[in-house]
């Protein structure tokens, strides 16, 4: 990770960490406070609801007990029963009257049952306020339950008639028995256990809600809100087993909504912080690392040879000092490089001078020897002077010719023009070159493998390259095989260089090959293994190929026959707009000055 991104990450951690941590602590504290409030309210409401259940039950119990102690309707019924005049009309009147009585007592259910013994009487419904049609029905079980329960309340399933329909409901009932002579009437009343009853407790204050549940206290699915809960009252059946419960439950949705809102706000704050930290980090990173990046860029330029590179200094402090040190260093490097170049130039001049001297010195010796021989033989009036003169002048002329050739080659190498590229087919140039060498002692063949792209190249220079290479190859092959058996192959094939189409030119001979230690020096000027070579041919080839943006390499041919292979890669784009200089350029001024 770069320094820049490390700075950004550090800024993010520095800002988001505290914000997130503090937000989390605030959230937890808020939840804890809200839970404490919920618990407090739940306890208060549960207590109030319990009180109301108790009060209501007491009031209803008193009202039902009063029925048996001297209520007009029950008394009237008892009198009718005693007098034996309770017939259908009296029963109908009772049935008509009972709903009003039930409502006036605030009850949901009221039944008057026959308590007289005997199967024909016991438990028969005189009238039912909650279901007129039950008059005459057998409610013996209810009658027994009332007598068994005494003053206790008990839960029973009850069928209640409302709006022309029968509804099966749970009811909490209690009863009493009125006795007068033979007459015995059982009054049973109570209220329906439904949500309306729970609502009537009046303790339904958000977020605490009261629910009527089954004996297990399980809340209805739509009421399960996940908040704390507490039993307000457990209603029991005749056997004392729980039948229903009123449960106070906290509706946690408001708190959960608040928490979601808080979470959203926290996330929002965190997000804003992260964005600000990121942007701030970016700014800081660029501010801090800008000079370093510039320093890095300048160092790269220096590394690539641009010793004039300097950095404009805008910063202060340590950065300013570092940049000033860099500028100072590059100044020193530039000075040292100038000195080095001068030294190299001198060295190159010396080397070239040495080589030229060596090359020139070689022909001078035969010339000197020939001239001295001619003078000696002339002075001695040597009888074979003419022959010697002839031989010596030939030698002198040959050596002079050699000197001229050396100078011409050197001059050509020094005056190598820039390539004038045109789009051409390498195949045509190669075919032309091979044509020049056909019919000699060495067999020269051209092989084209696949479709070759046209390349931009200087036709003359490319021809010179191929001629040089083929000539060298032919020389090597003949050197090994004499006038028979030497073979040179020029192989053209499509290639690719850095995504660009290219042409691969391979010149393969079956000569003695080039030892690996010589392969590195083979393209240096004046390096030659041939007795009559100038050592500039392959240097020129190397330079032309380089000027065309291509590359040249040399290797050995695998296999028992051996040989050398020169491989050239010519890109389709050809020479760059400004042809690059080669390593020999540094020596050219010296040569040109000469």
């Amino acid at each position: 990770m770069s320094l820049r991104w490390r700075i950004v990450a550090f800024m993010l951690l520095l800002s988001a960490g505290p914000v997130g941590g503090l937000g989390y602590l605030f959230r937890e504290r808020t939840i804890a406070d809200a839970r404490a409030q919920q618990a407090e309210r739940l306890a208060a409401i549960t207590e109030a609801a319990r009180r109301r259940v108790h009060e209501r039950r007491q009031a209803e119990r008193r009202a039902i007990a009063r029925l048996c102690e001297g209520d007009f309707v029950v008394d009237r019924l008892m009198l009718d029963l005693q007098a034996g005049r309770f017939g259908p009309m009296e029963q109908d009147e009772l049935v008509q009257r009972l709903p009003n009585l039930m409502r006036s007592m605030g009850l949901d259910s009221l039944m008057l049952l026959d308590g007289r013994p005997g199967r024909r009487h016991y438990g028969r419904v005189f009238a039912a306020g909650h279901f007129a049609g039950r008059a005459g029905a057998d409610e013996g079980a209810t009658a027994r339950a009332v007598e068994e329960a005494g003053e206790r309340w008990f839960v029973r399933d009850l069928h209640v008639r409302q709006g022309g329909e029968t509804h099966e409901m749970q009811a909490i009932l209690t009863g009493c028995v009125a006795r007068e002579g033979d007459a015995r009437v059982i009054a049973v009343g109570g209220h329906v256990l439904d949500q309306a009853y729970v609502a009537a407790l009046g303790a339904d204050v958000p977020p605490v809600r009261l629910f009527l549940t089954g004996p297990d206290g399980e809340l209805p699915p739509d009421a399960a809100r996940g908040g704390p809960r507490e039993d307000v009252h457990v209603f029991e059946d005749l056997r004392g087993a729980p039948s229903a419960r009123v449960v106070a439950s906290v509706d946690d949705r408001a708190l959960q909504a608040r928490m979601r809102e808080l979470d959203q706000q926290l996330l929002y704050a965190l997000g804003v912080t992260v964005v600000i930290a990121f942007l701030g980090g970016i700014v800081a990173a660029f501010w801090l690392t800008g000079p370093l990046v510039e320093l890095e860029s300048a160092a790269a330029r220096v590394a690539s040879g641009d010793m004039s590179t300097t950095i404009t200094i805008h910063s202060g402090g340590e950065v300013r000092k570092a940049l000033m040190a860099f500028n100072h260093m590059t100044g020193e490097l530039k000075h040292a490089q100038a000195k080095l170049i001068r030294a190299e130039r001198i060295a190159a001049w010396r080397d070239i001078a040495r080589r030229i001297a060596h090359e020139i010195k070689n022909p001078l010796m035969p010339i000197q020897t020939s001239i001295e021989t001619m003078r000696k033989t002339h002075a001695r009036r040597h009888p074979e002077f003419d022959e010697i003169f002839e031989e010596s002048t030939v030698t002198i002329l040959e050596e002079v010719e050699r000197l001229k050739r050396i100078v011409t080659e050197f001059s050509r190498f020094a005056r190598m023009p820039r390539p004038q590229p045109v789009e051409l087919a390498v195949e045509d140039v190669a075919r032309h070159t091979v044509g020049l060498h056909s019919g000699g002692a060495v067999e020269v063949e051209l092989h084209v493998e696949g479709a070759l792209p046209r390349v931009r190249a200087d036709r003359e220079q490319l021809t010179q390259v191929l001629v040089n290479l083929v000539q060298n190859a032919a020389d090597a092959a003949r050197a090994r095989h004499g006038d028979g058996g030497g073979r040179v192959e020029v192989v053209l094939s499509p290639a690719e260089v850095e995504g660009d189409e290219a042409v691969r030119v391979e010149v393969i001979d079956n000569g003695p090959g080039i030892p690996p230690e010589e392969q590195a020096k083979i393209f240096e000027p004046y390096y030659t293994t041939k007795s009559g070579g100038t050592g500039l041919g392959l240097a020129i080839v190397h330079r032309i190929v380089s000027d065309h943006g291509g590359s040249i390499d040399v290797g050995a041919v695998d296999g028992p026959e051996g040989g050398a292979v020169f491989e050239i890669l010519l890109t389709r784009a050809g020479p760059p707009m400004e042809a690059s200089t080669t390593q020999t350029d540094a020596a050219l001024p010296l040569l040109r000055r000469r």
Partner: protein
Amino acid sequence: MDRSLIGAALAILALAVSAAPARGALGPKHGGAITLPAPEPATTLDPARAETAFEATLTEALFDRLYEVRDDGTVEAVLAAGPPEIAEDVARIRLRPGALHHGTRPIRARHVVRSLQRTSSAPLASWLLGAFATENGRPAIREVDEETVEIRLARRGLRVDIVLAATPLAIVVGGNVRGRPLGTGAFRGRLDGRGGVELRIFRSAPDRPPWVNRVRFTPPRPREEEVRAFELGRLDGSWWSRSLYGGQPVRPVETATATAASPVLLVPNRARALRDDDAWGGVASAIDRARLERVGLVARRSLGAGLPAPRLPRGRAPRGARLRMIVRDDRPFERRVGEALAGMLDERGIALQVDRLSPDRLDATVARGDWDLRIALVRPPLPGRGPLVGAALAAAGQTDRARRLATQLGDAEVAAEAARQLDVLVLGQERVLLHHRADLRGFGFDGMGRLTLADASFARSRPEATR
């Protein structure tokens, strides 16, 4: 002042005073008004559409028939001049000369023809026209002259005078038949639009009923209000109770009661949940008639004395079934029967939903078949078993069978077989009951459950006037 005039006045006064001790022997007292609560909203005064005892009471007071069947079985001409003249299958009936309708004009043959023809559109009365031949789909009844009506009978030997004595065939001369009809009866009447009716005396004679000048039925009110008004003297009777709290009334009260020969049927819809004999038999067996007594029914298994009970399938109560019973919302009696049935069926695990519908909606619902049970009140048009079974068939929606029976009204065997095949449950006979002030005389119910308004009169020493 002229002596002769003073003398005449004194003579008249002396005659009046001398006549006073003989007043009790003169019979019921003329005059006075009776105010009674309507047991249900009065919605029609059309005799062809009267279903309940109350509606029959009203139409009996407003209309006359051509003939009447007396309690001893004899037929008496009322609007007819005498027995019909029958030649083969054609009967000719002459109208009684001088008979006036409530418009104080003589009744004509065309009135009779129109009145009988219109009956064909009344579901509960049209079956009686099965006794007459038809022409172009209409009863073959025509006017011969202003005073003679000719009727072609469905078969020879048919007692057309008995058929014409049927209460739904009472003669409606015209007017607004539902609300303010013109009849020929003892009273003229009109609906007050709120469920009440006002009857005013039309036919007044010194020695014949009706005795009271006016009978007003106030719109129905809740039980407690009705009883309170009766006890406070604002009403002259109550259908519910003698006193507000069932105790001793503050004024003398008498109770008129009768078991009307008008069966109450439970009609099943055999095209829905009760299509299976098993289900219908189970429902029928779940009903305890004795428990219906408190809602005003006298438990009976058959339509009437001498008739067999309808043959009901045996079955088990379909536990868990949900049935829909439809009752008329203007008839508390039907609603109470429905609620009582709901209680009984609930004990067998059958949920009965009792829907109260307006008369029009109820008719539409019945026609649509969107019901399981309904109450049918059978109002026998004539004494005898045949008419009773015919009315029951019509009330149960089996009009075609009723029309066929109309030609054999006197055949006891046919009536018995029809009664046996009636696919209904007879719940019982409707018991009618009215608590009324004790000084109302001649007040009660006839054998068909109708209040005898024409015979009612106030005692000559009236303790208190109705406020």
